[in-house]
């Protein structure tokens, strides 16, 4: 990666330090040991099953259907949701989990046999992917981490995991392996922070998605589906 340029840094930061009434900081500053840490208390000690319950409840509040299924029933469950959304066209990530969870047949044969176009994100095709996603009816991704409290799927985008798959299609389906569910955003933030400190770069785009897009800008009434998907379904699957 070529380094970017930085302009006016010293004059600006010297001025900031001066305004603060001291010379510019040149040594490492450690974060203090915070006096409060309320985020650690949320759903502390909850089992995976209890977290699933929390997630399902939150799904209702954010206008998102939440379905629970076993790995062996996943293809049928996914097909049902896709067809329920009107079939037509699907775009998915290029993600080995589709195969691991036994979805290859459905994507390669099952859906096409029902006149559903399936496009798998293909880095070779460049911007063509975006065009296809823009016209697609359904976008499907796996969830990388899932937050029970807020009903959030966390997507670390990059390479085969295009940003547009969860954004441009009219509807969105997230497949949530049960093992990815954690209490809340705290756990993701801690992991990214740890990785970062170990020199591992965070993905260029991390999305925290909680249900369909919405707005309350017209007379404060909730309208679902403004720029992003109009409907969303989460399929929680018991891991293999």
């Amino acid at each position, binding site marked *: *990666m*070529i*380094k*970017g*340029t*930085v*302009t006016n*840094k010293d*004059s*600006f930061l*010297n001025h*900031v330090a001066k*305004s*603060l009434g001291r010379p510019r*900081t040149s040594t490492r*500053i450690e974060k203090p040991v*915070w006096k*409060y*840490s*309320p985020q650690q208390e*949320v759903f502390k000690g909850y089992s995976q099953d209890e977290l699933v319950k929390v997630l399902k409840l*939150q799904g209702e509040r954010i206008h998102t259907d939440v379905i629970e299924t076993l790995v062996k029933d996943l293809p049928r469950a996914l097909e049902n949701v896709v067809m329920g959304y009107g079939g037509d066209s699907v775009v998915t990530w290029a993600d080995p989990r589709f195969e691991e969870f036994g979805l290859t047949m459905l994507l390669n044969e099952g859906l096409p046999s029902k006149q559903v176009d399936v496009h798998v*994100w293909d880095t070779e095709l*460049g*911007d063509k992917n*975006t065009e296809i996603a823009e016209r697609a009816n359904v976008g499907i991704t796996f969830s990388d981490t899932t937050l029970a*409290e807020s*009903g959030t799927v966390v997507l670390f*985008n*990059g*390479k085969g995991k*295009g*940003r*547009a798959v969860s*954004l441009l299609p009219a509807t969105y389906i997230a497949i949530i392996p049960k093992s990815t569910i954690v209490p809340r*955003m*705290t756990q993701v*933030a801690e992991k*990214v*922070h740890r990785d*970062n400190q170990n020199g591992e770069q*965070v*993905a*260029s*785009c*991390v*999305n*925290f998605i*909680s249900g369909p*897009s*919405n*707005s*309350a*800008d*017209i007379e*404060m009434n909730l309208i679902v*589906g*403004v*720029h*992003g998907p109009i409907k969303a379904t989460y399929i929680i699957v018991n891991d293999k």
Partner: protein
Amino acid sequence: MGMKIGTAAFKERVDQGLSDSFMRGAVSAAQGRLRDGRLNAAEELGNWEDWRSHGEEIRKHTLEHLDYYLEMLVDNVSKRGGHVFFAQTAEEANEYITNVVKKKGAKKIVKSKSMVTEEISMNEALEKIGCDVVESDLGEWILQVDDHDPPSHIVAPALHKNKEQIRDVFRDKLGYKNSEKPEELALFAREQLREEFLAAEVGITGCNFAIADSGTVTLVTNEGNARMATTLPKTQITVMGMERIVPSWEEMEVLVSLLTRAAVGQKLTSYITALTGPKGEGDVDGPEEFHLVVVDNGRSKILGTEFQEALHCIRCAACINVCPVYRHVGGHSYGSIYPGPIGAVLSPLLGGYDDYKELPYASTLCAACTEACPVKIPLHELLIKHRQKIVEKEGKAPVFESLSMKAFRMGTASPTMYNIGSKLAPKMMKPFVKEDKIANGPGPLKNWTSIRDFPAPSNERFRDWFKNREKEESKS
């Protein structure tokens, strides 16, 4: 439009605000809804006070070491291939942004809602070089389509317009043919804005929190417009006030949790997007070029003073939603893009006492704002400090010392009447809105409207009016 909205004197703005029953009703209903949302979300957490204290300690530490964390941030942004520009003034920021845009030969720019770009009048600077700048937040877009009607609320900028007015705006300006149903209006906006996103060469966003130790910017939205603006255009420019920064992901997480709860009572908004540099190698979508513009524009004047805590603000609008004065006079009365209690503290600091010395008096000092603030900024104490300084400087308080107090007392002198008036206004007023005038309302509203048969402020096209006015002046 810059920080300043309108040139009317404070008193006139207040009178205008008072005269608009729909606005008052809408403001009051929205305030109530947002406030209840916050209270429910707080209650659900159980230990909301600990959350607030944690937010406070994070903000305090970060601001005290602002130079350190900004340096860390920009070093990390540049490591990830992003370009950084530090702008002391609005002009410097705009010059840099317009240069980037020119270099790209860009004509169409999509923006997702951002206070700081309003503050520096970035849109005007871009329009001057011939660019089409499209606001993509639904509320902002509605205002833009309506010839730049000024916003009235930080999180709900088009709060002062009802759905019939929005339908008419769409019909008159864009040939919209459907009904005033919010879903149909939104669908129309979706279609129109999709085209804009696909055509735009540059996407411009604000920044809720920048994360120093990873070089990340975090955007919080419900509509997904910030995602669109950072997924489709090839160039992304993010503009941030220099104080909008946290040390690491761990603190970002806490402040986002506070922000979404305090702003809209949601655990998280539909989309939180954390972006680090331009798209990575092998990524298909996302910007090829990323620019971060860090803006001072008067903020450093607040550092190291008794007002430093004002920079702790995370722009949630909770203080606005509990403010009885705001409820009464509406957002436009503050004459600043920053309304409500935080606006009354911040506007004089950023814009000077000459323009904003009345604002610290637009408060009853009831402390509801301080109590609501998720990062515990002592807002009412800062307002008192302003008053002390103003009296010191001017030798006396502004003439109408307690104009807003009077306005406020008028409302509370007859609470039932006020409540009926404000709660029912949107429904009841409809048949009585004749052309652009609010005519006499029925029953209890009559007393409120009969003496105030003013043009409804929302139809006052500030820019047009202002331009004409300036022309007239230069003639004379």
